[in-house]
């Protein structure tokens, strides 16, 4: 396109346009003081909050790493605990115990949690008072301190009606009760996220409600449910208080069995080592903390990756 030569301007036009230009130029520049300063202070406070949170996390990791480094080695996983030789002390029974516990929790919590969530979302009439009561109770149970679940487990699972004794299954049942509300809430959110239009489309074809749930709703909510379950498991794996009450014996030298005999768990074993007077055992405890953090980080990262990869954008 050829540039047009500007037409000669009259004096009046030139004055008017330069006046307009002067009015605009500089009027939009940043003004010092006032709201801008407040904005900056607010931003600085937010950075401070994030910094404190990061600092706390870093302190735990660094402190444990420094303290536990001397003891870090393969023997942590392969050797059993020892009261005499701290350099040979390991976490093997505790690791196996934790694995059994988590497996038990997984088997118990997924069908019960998902079933409860499907009932509450798909079948329950939310206007009925008993359904509202159930919902309220589940929210409350998610916030109950974990030691209460330990007492519950001791009274009803280890002794009382079930009388299972101090075995790993009892520990799994107790931990399942602890994390079940979390799983139900997460599964409900996942099921609720499936839009009603999908259900309507399925029902309009002549599918039954059960077919719709099984073939449309549940498959679409699996990523959300899986994420919730993994996060619940990562909470369960780190609980010490309820396990102390249902008999995760603090000193187990043999590999535990799920259905009989004593057992231990990682958090409880760390607790045990940390209580020892000798400094060398504290090193072992710190190494155990690092081990647990690695496991927890891996589980949570997997959950987040799973959610990001498979999450359905409606």
């Amino acid at each position, binding site marked *: 396109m050829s540039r047009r030569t500007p037409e000669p301007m009259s004096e009046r036009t030139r004055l008017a346009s330069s006046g307009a230009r002067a009015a605009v130029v500089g009027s939009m520049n940043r003004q010092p003081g006032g709201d801008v300063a407040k904005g900056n202070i607010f931003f600085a406070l937010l950075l401070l909050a994030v910094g404190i949170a990061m600092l706390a996390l870093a302190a735990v990791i660094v402190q444990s790493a420094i303290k536990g480094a001397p003891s870090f080695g393969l023997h942590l996983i392969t050797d059993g605990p020892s009261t005499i030789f701290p350099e040979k002390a390991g976490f093997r029974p505790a690791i196996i115990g934790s694995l059994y516990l988590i497996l038990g929790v997984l088997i118990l919590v997924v069908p019960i949690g998902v079933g409860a969530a499907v009932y509450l979302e798909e079948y329950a*009439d939310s206007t009925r008072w008993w359904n509202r009561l159930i919902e309220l109770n589940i929210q409350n149970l998610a916030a109950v301190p974990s030691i209460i679940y330990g007492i519950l487990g001791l009274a009803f699972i280890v002794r009382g009606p079930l009388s299972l004794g101090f075995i790993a299954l009892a520990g799994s049942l107790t931990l399942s009760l602890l994390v079940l509300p979390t799983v139900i809430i997460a599964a409900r959110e996942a099921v609720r996220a499936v839009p009603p239009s999908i259900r309507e*489309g*399925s*029902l309009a074809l*002549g*599918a039954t409600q059960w077919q719709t749930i099984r*073939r449309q709703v549940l498959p679409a909510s699996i990523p959300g449910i899986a994420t919730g379950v993994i996060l619940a498991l990562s909470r369960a794996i780190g609980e010490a208080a309820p396990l102390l009450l249902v008999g995760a014996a603090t000193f187990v030298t043999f590999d535990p069995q799920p259905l009989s005999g004593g057992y231990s768990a990682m958090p409880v074993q760390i607790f045990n080592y940390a209580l020892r007077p000798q400094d060398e055992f504290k090193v072992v405890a710190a190494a155990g903390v690092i081990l647990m953090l690695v496991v927890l980080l891996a589980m949570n990262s997997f959950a987040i990756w799973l959610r990001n990869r498979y999450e*359905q954008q409606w």
Partner: protein
Amino acid sequence: MLERVADQAKRATGAATGRKDAPEIDVSGVTEGVRHGHALKGSDTIFDLKDLTVRYNGQPAVKDVTMDVHENEITALIGPSGCGKSTLIRCFNRMNDLIPTATVEGHCFYHGQDLYDSKVDPVEVRKRIGMVFQKPNPFPKSIFDNVAFGPKVLGLKDVSERVERALRGAALWDEVKDRLDQNAYGMSGGQQQRLCIARCIAVDPDVILMDEPCSALDPISTGKIEDLMLELKEQYSIVIVTHNMQQAARVSNRTAFLIVELSASEKDRWGELVEYDDTDKIFTNPADPRTEDYVTGKVG
């Protein structure tokens, strides 16, 4: 194809000029099915509504609708917003059952069977009377799995053939035959709606209900779906809700016009059927002045 164009042109001219002396083009040759411009005869009644009333929480949404729907025709429900067209069309396949606060009074006979009889299973009803919704709602699965879902849950055989037939019937086969395993969400809006239509016809229904199927689509896709409707009515009976009067004039054989009625205190509103007749008559020579006001655009 040419007959259809001529037919549409005749209808459009008739609607515009109010004259019906264009020559009749009989294209069926099989039944004595007579095209537009004359009183329609020879078409069986499939739906018979008698004093059908729907209430939400006791408040009426649509009251005392009495009309019939005929086989292999396109029946349009038109009217202003809030006149209960969507509520009414959802009665035909018991979809109002999904709304807990909805109650239905009166009768809706399908081939003589009252759909709201206590012995009738709504799941069985929906196997024969399908529905396409306003916003395309494909499942989060592949194109093949979307169309195959209906036949699979209904236990029908020859799923792959049904899928191909349905996609051909929905004028979608050529566009998707090489990518049947791709996610349905990758398709455009118009394609998704045609996929929903394919999904609906894969279970061989008798009736297809369409609740404003084109309102979320662009004009080109709308035109494609209207052409599709005219093809589909050879095999199925179609009831369509539309807020687009011209669409009703273009595609339908009969049109029902509903309005919003207010109670004396003006606190309650519900829909009522004003006039139900051949589309030509509704648009060129309606009996009720309210119909005339609406179709000529005097009232919105």
